[in-house]
């Protein structure tokens, strides 16, 4: 499948279908196509050919989605940044990729001094005609920045070949099919790569995408969308149904036919309760690092006889077609099935490598002889077990990366900025589980107590809001284990 050709084809084939429903307003494929054409016109008139990458502010509106598609049709790619993220972090992302042009559906006064900000907000309904573009498979489509343990976020570029491979593999597995009559949930911020599947896969199938406003509580708005619009195709992070759990008794969503989870471990007891709320739905779990283009594996939860889970966490399942998986021990040797090790993935979905980060590229990607081929594998850092039937079970992380609301968070990045501000190395950031069974960040400081308002305000200028610790504790000294390393398990017991 060629994603861009399919999109262009669908704009005509489904022109009267709704493509998006945003803030209760419907937009047809034709209306979207017109917006795309107008933004292409802006790109052609303003951005020189050699400027391949543009920044994009992640607003929830039709202009922002149209900008993504317009950039693609013009052979360019986007880097999404959060409108609520600190200016310093966003500017670092733009500068580290030598970006000059930013697109926004709003005015970005904080950025106009250093960048050319183009508005995607046009008041016209006129279609501008273009010749079709021929775009090479090696063309970048987007770059997602994820948390980096050394204090700076790192960019993962994804090209047309990567995306074509993902959607071809999804299309091959008909269990994930979307029909032109489907109403699909898109709950992810555009800075989160799962958004690619939740907005693009419906568009590749003539269906309608239902998005979430920025200022609403996500789980409540999702509940409202399912209720009012009778959504039937859901992809969510598990925390959404964890929040909704106290109200499961009120829920009987008969219209939902597909309910998939991803981006964080899925608790078995939670999904078993959820099953009763969506009696007609097929339920899936999914898994995938950004470096292997959104989704790598799916687990079919519907075979109740042979359910696979470990430590109360549902298995992540089998790889999509075209993806090879191996489990390596610490000496980079393949372990036997059933033995825990680091999951490594190979195939056409693997990124070309982190942007301008030779060191990280050396440690994260390895060439490996597998089934007679010398293949490039991405080392996920996720500890897994592979069963004889290829089903993968997620055990945990081998490093200090955790997930907050599905976002990847390197505890080291928060510690780095905290140490810088406090000029104190005796601190530790840990993840704790709160009363609602959600992960929270706690900062432990070995010091006399002091007012931490300034520290938190400083962190807010460096980190996105989901990375700001919500609990702070002062201790006489950090607790160490017998190897002299900070014992985070002991620190966790303080909460």
């Amino acid at each position, binding site marked *: 499948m060629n994603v861009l050709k399919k999109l262009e084809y669908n704009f005509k084939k489904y022109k009267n279908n709704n493509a998006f429903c945003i803030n209760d307003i419907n937009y047809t494929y034709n209306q979207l196509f017109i917006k795309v054409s107008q933004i292409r016109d802006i790109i052609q008139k303003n951005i020189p050919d050699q400027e391949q990458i543009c920044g994009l502010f992640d607003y929830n509106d039709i202009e922002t989605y149209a900008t993504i598609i317009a950039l693609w049709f013009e052979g360019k790619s986007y880097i999404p940044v959060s409108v609520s993220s600190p200016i310093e972090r966003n500017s670092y992302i733009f500068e580290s990729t030598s970006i000059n042009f930013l697109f926004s559906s709003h005015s970005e006064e904080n950025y106009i001094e250093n960048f050319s900000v183009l508005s995607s907000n046009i008041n016209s309904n006129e279609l501008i005609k273009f010749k079709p573009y021929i775009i090479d498979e090696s063309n970048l489509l987007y770059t997602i920045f994820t948390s980096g343990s050394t204090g700076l976020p790192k960019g993962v570029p994804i090209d047309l070949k990567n995306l074509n491979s993902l959607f071809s593999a999804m299309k091959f597995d008909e269990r994930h099919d979307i029909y032109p009559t489907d109403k699909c949930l898109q709950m992810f911020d555009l800075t989160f790569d799962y958004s690619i599947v939740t907005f693009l896969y419906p568009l590749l199938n003539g269906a309608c995408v239902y998005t979430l406003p920025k200022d609403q*509580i996500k789980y409540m708005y999702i509940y409202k969308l399912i209720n009012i619009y009778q959504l039937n195709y859901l992809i969510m992070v598990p925390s959404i149904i964890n929040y909704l759990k106290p109200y499961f008794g009120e829920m009987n969503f008969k219209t939902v036919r597909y309910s998939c989870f991803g981006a964080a471990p899925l608790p078995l007891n939670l999904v078993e309760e959820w099953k009763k709320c969506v009696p007609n739905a097929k339920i899936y779990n999914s898994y995938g690092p950004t470096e292997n283009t959104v989704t790598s594996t799916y687990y079919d939860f519907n075979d109740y006889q042979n359910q696979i889970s470990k430590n109360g966490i549902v298995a992540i399942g089998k790889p999509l077609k075209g993806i090879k998986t191996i489990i390596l021990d610490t000496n980079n040797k393949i372990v036997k099935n059933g033995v825990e090790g680091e999951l490594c993935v190979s195939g056409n979905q693997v990124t070309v490598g982190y942007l301008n980060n030779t060191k990280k590229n050396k440690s994260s990607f390895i060439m490996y002889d597998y089934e007679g081929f010398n293949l490039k594998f991405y080392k996920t850092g996720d500890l897994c077990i592979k069963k004889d039937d290829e089903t993968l079970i997620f055990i945990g992380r081998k490093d200090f990366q955790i997930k907050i609301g599905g976002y990847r968070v390197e505890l080291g990045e928060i510690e780095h900025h905290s140490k810088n501000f406090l000029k104190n190395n005796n601190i530790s950031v840990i993840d704790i589980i709160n009363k609602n069974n959600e992960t929270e960040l706690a900062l432990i400081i070995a010091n006399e107590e002091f007012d931490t308002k300034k520290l938190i305000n400083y962190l807010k200028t460096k980190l996105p809001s989901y990375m700001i610790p919500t609990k702070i504790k002062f201790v006489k000294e950090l607790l160490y284990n017998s190897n002299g390393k900070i014992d985070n398990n002991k620190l966790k017991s303080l909460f």
Partner: protein
Amino acid sequence: MDTEQTINQLTKIFTQVLERDSIELNLNTTANDIDGWDSITHMMIINEVENELNIKFKLLDLMNLENISDLVTLIHSEQKN
């Protein structure tokens, strides 16, 4: 129960859940006015209100809360039931 009494109870719950020394609530207070009152702590606050006042909200009713005044009205209507 009168409005002032309910606001006092809410103030107690808010200070406890948000782990703060003092919080001032009035009928016009919204989530924007209180540091730390976000989508995560919101559910914790709501759960605590349900437990403390021995009531159970419906999710559809919770969606229309704009400020403390709406929450007080909702609490009173649940207490009548």
